[in-house]
């Protein structure tokens, strides 16, 4: 199964409530995916800053003095916000890659969840309400975000197996379904220089899209390519620094509902996830067509 929720705000007045709205939507999708949950929130770090979101199984040890150590290693200011097993490190945008390499050296046990100008990803095993509370997602503001509740089929229930997967700067993907040709596609992407953290099928979908974007394709074209090159069942929701895309495989048995008003575009695996959004009664509500790419960019 799995549940997906997504929200792309058009009205800046709603931005402070993004985390609260997404949390409510995510918790509604608990019975589609009680194994683990995750959320990607996009909000600007401010002028010239980038964000590295990291995770550790031993946060007390790994996050202790990490900001100081990292500052010394990259020779630039570092701000760190620790939230449970995750920490968000703000560094000058130009130093983001250097910070990523330095973190890997300084704290080998740490995993990078996401990196970019706007993105933060928080994900853990456990019920969506517990995961959201742990990272205080409801207090977060932002421009757009994607959430996922997981019922695992293809790989183990672990933090790294939870969605969203981020395989490129400011990019993330969540998936409902299962891919059948992911091993072959992963091999090909590795040959092209992409790296993988897990054996998970969804990570291959994410890396496939990231690779297309790296080669200069538009988000629309990258999503189109999933229809020809990926085999299996999928409803994907993808986030980029300024946008939000949706694509379903041609069979389209994995459910999807969308709603649009002047204030937002929303995605839910089921209509239930959307019922508390403002103005939903008057929203245009529709089911995205199979093998059809939808995306919104600001």
């Amino acid at each position: 199964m799995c549940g997906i929720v997504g929200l792309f705000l058009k009205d800046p007045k709603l931005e402070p409530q993004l985390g609260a709205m997404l949390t409510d939507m995510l918790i509604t999708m608990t019975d589609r995916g009680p194994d683990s949950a995750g959320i990607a929130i996009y909000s600007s770090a401010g002028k010239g800053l980038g964000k590295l979101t990291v995770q550790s199984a031993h946060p007390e040890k790994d996050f202790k003095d990490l900001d100081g150590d990292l500052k010394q290693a990259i020779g630039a200011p570092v701000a760190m916000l620790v939230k449970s097993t995750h920490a968000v490190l703000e560094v000058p945008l130009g130093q983001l890659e250097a910070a990523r390499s330095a973190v890997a050296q300084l704290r080998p046990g740490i995993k990078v969840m996401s990196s970019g100008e706007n993105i933060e990803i928080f994900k853990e095993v456990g019920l969506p309400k517990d995961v959201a509370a742990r990272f205080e997602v409801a207090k977060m503001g932002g421009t757009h975000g994607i959430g996922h509740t997981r019922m695992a089929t293809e790989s183990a229930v672990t933090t790294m197996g939870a969605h969203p997967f981020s395989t490129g700067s400011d990019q993330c993907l969540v998936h409902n379904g299962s891919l059948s040709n992911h091993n072959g596609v992963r091999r090909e992407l590795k040959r092209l220089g992409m790296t993988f953290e897990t054996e998970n099928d969804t990570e291959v979908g994410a890396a496939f899209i990231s690779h297309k974007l790296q080669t200069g394709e538009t988000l629309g074209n990258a999503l189109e390519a999933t229809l020809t090159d990926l085999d299996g069942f999928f409803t994907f929701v993808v986030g980029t620094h300024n946008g939000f895309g949706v694509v379903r495989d041609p069979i389209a048995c994995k459910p999807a509902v969308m709603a649009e008003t002047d204030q937002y575009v929303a995605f839910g695996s089921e209509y239930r996830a959307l019922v508390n959004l403002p103005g939903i009664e008057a929203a245009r509500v529709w089911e995205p067509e199979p093998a059809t790419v939808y995306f919104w960019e600001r």
Partner: protein
Amino acid sequence: MQTFDLSKEGLRALNSSLHALKGQTNMTAWEVINPKGAHAIAAGVDAPVDITVRGSTGYYCAGMNKLATIRIKGSAGPGVAENMMSGTVIIDGDASQYAGATGRGGLLVIKGNASSRCGISMKGIDIVVHGNIGHMSCFMAQSGNMVVLGDAGEALGDSLYEARLFVRGSVKSLGADCIEKEMRPEHIALLADLLKRGEADGKARPEEFKRYGSARKLYNFNIDNASAY
């Protein structure tokens, strides 16, 4: 009128109240408010009552319906009226995938569009869709009638048995063993009745439809293919 607030009283209380109605009852009119996309609303009703759901529903609304008239004043999630036995289900909005699947009788009316697999394996139900239907609709449909005022998606009526399909608009593609057939006077009469009962008689005339059915080449055992089995 019995008004039931689903957000306060819960789904189990609603469905057990409805299941308690057997045969003739004085509580013939029911209204369900705040459905909020909940699953299995008014599934398994077996009484001649009239139920109006004020909003959109989740999976399997009106599933296995017998005798009841169920109106959805919104859109319906996957599997609406699945395996309906008799009665009527009327959806004002759209219906998600496999609406009316395996339905054995009664009438399902969808005033918006239906998505994929509408009427899959239908076995006697009549379905009237005012808009379009998605891909793989009427797959292995055995009997009953499908009426579509709009267009049909890919692979309509794949591996069809004896259901009759009437489409007014375009058909993206026909599935294996599904062919266009002649509209005879009895089909015009049947269609006129279905359009009337499906609240669509002001929207379309029977003469505007094409009929599709089984070529009957696939479902009979063919001795020449014995080696393939």
